[in-house]
């Protein structure tokens, strides 16, 4: 294994067995293939994003890397340790945060929770006390007056900070974080993102973060893997990924849909008429139709799309042509939106 690689996944496959009730007493077994042979690596000291929609396989990947799930096929190594054969060694070099909204004892304060987990992870005495104080300060929980508050009184932002503090307890070289900013208000999400970047770029930690937030991935990730339906579609820097669709432009049409229209049917029509990948982003007042089109065909695609929208009795409010974003890369690679 290359010494510059912190995490290496090779051909990971994971299937889940689910049971579907088909009668009062009968169940049908169904196999869901969550990962279909994904491979990627994460370099030491970088923030690496696993970007994909719900059900893409992000959490399954993270759980395998965190030794919480055994893969059916393939191997994965963290800091050179095999996640199956050397799970205990892997556990010593990782910090994990899977959900921000729970995972602690409700009747203990933030400080007490950290002390308990710290002890469980092998810290003790003065070292534990010092590390807990350091983290409460670093994560801003002291400033928020939350260190000695019961966990049940925490806001989601405080919970997210505490979750990251636990992941950092043993000062591990690798952090594995599943949607660390999910549900946070913008200021909390922003400060957490800044902290993750600082941890990677100033302290040399390797941060693997999953997200379905394109904006977040674009801001914090040094490299991004786009994952969809259990497959890695592309791995590159955000810049590199954008280059893949540099010859394309993003056509954004603001519109109001008639009440009875099926958006999936409309999208399918536009896709087949224009030959371009597209997605519909739902807004409160207005929806946004995004079409990733080759720049030389943008006029033709616009005319075609507008005609179709007119046929479907959609009210068009705005038409914009933009440079591609990470979201456009995703639409281009997967052929659809759906975040």
């Amino acid at each position, binding site marked *: 294994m290359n010494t510059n690689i912190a995490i290496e996944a090779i051909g990971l496959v*994971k299937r*889940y*067995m689910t049971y579907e009730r088909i009668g009062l007493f009968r169940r049908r077994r169904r196999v869901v293939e969550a990962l279909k042979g994904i491979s990627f690596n994460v370099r030491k000291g970088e923030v690496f994003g696993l970007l994909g929609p719900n059900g893409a396989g992000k959490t*399954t990947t993270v*759980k395998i890397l*965190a*030794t*919480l*799930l*055994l893969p059916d096929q393939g191997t994965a190594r963290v800091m050179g340790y095999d996640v199956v054969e050397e799970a*205990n060694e892997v*556990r*010593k070099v*990782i910090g*994990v945060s*899977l*959900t921000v*909204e*729970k*995972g*602690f*004892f*409700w*009747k*203990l*304060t933030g400080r*007490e929770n950290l*002390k*308990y*987990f710290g*002890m*469980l*992870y*092998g810290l*003790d005495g003065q070292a534990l006390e010092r590390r807990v104080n350091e983290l409460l300060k670093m994560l801003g929980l002291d400033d928020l007056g939350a260190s000695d508050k*019961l966990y049940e009184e925490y806001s989601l932002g405080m919970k997210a900070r505490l979750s990251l503090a*636990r992941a950092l307890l043993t000062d591990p070289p690798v952090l594995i974080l599943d949607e660390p900013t999910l549900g946070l208000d913008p200021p909390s999400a922003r400060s957490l993102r800044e902290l993750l970047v600082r941890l990677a770029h100033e302290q040399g930690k390797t941060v693997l973060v999953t997200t379905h937030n394109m904006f977040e991935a674009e801001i914090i990730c040094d490299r991004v893997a786009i994952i969809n339906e259990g497959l890695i579609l592309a791995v590159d820097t955000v810049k590199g990924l954008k280059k893949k669709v540099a010859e394309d432009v993003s056509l954004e049409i603001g519109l109001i849909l008639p009440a009875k229209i099926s958006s999936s049917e409309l999208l399918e029509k536009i896709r087949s008429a224009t030959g371009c990948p597209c997605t519909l982003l739902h807004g409160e007042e207005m929806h946004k139709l995004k079409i990733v089109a080759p720049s030389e065909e943008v006029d033709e695609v616009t005319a075609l799309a507008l005609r179709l929208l007119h046929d479907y009795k959609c009210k068009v409010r705005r038409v914009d042509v933009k440079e591609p974003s990470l979201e456009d890369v995703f639409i281009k690679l997967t052929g659809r939106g759906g975040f």
Partner: protein
Amino acid sequence: MGRFLTLMKSGIMLDLYWLKNNRASFISMMLWPYLMLGLVLGMGFIFGSSEAFQRNIGLKVNPITYFVASTVVVMACLGIMWDVGGNVLFLKWIGALPYVIVAPHRISMTLILSYIPRYLFLTMFQLLEFIPLIFLVEGIKQGIFKLGVMVLALTLGMLPLLGFSALFAIVFMVTGEEESNLLSWLNPLILLFSGAFYPVALLPYWAQLIAWALPSTYTIELARLSALMGSPRFAQIIFLMGILLGMAMFYNLVAYSFIGVGERRALKKGAL
């Protein structure tokens, strides 16, 4: 040894914090055995006197001592089965299970070892609560002896029950379904078979066979022996101690071998 101590210490720490932050719940927990005892004795005295009780069971025994022993030991058995067996479900419910698993210890060891201090503390505290009552009804000399046997029963009785309850933890780990907490209906059955409500001798033969396989039967038997004895009968105590130690080895070895398999199956299935 270091790992063993770390897990014990983390258990003590967790419990002390919990007690500090939940005083009301601690007080109600301490009152509970007295309430239970009061209810059992109250019901008993409505239907008859202490003499009637002694006539019915055919031994000269104080019903207060008898039911104190029963109450403490039944609560201890229930506590172990819920806390060791059901802890997987609790940790899963609060979302802390993955973070306990990523600690560099076996999950089963964490569940069992971090529970031992809580068991010893709560059980002994509950027993301490009854000291004035036992001294009052038995006198100081007999009281000390009988309390000693109860402490022995509770400490030795814990050992096989830890392994026995760990088997439930394996089932919960593998099934991974929080709603199917079989402990809620299995616990009363186990207590029934163990002679907590009726003497084992009064149960049908097939139920007696189950009773002799359960470690809780001997824990309850040993604790009650303290109440039933008018004078020390060491042979009986040593016999029950031997059975409990044998069962401790058996159940803990079985649990140890199956837990590894259970953990692996749960990790494979994604149940954790």
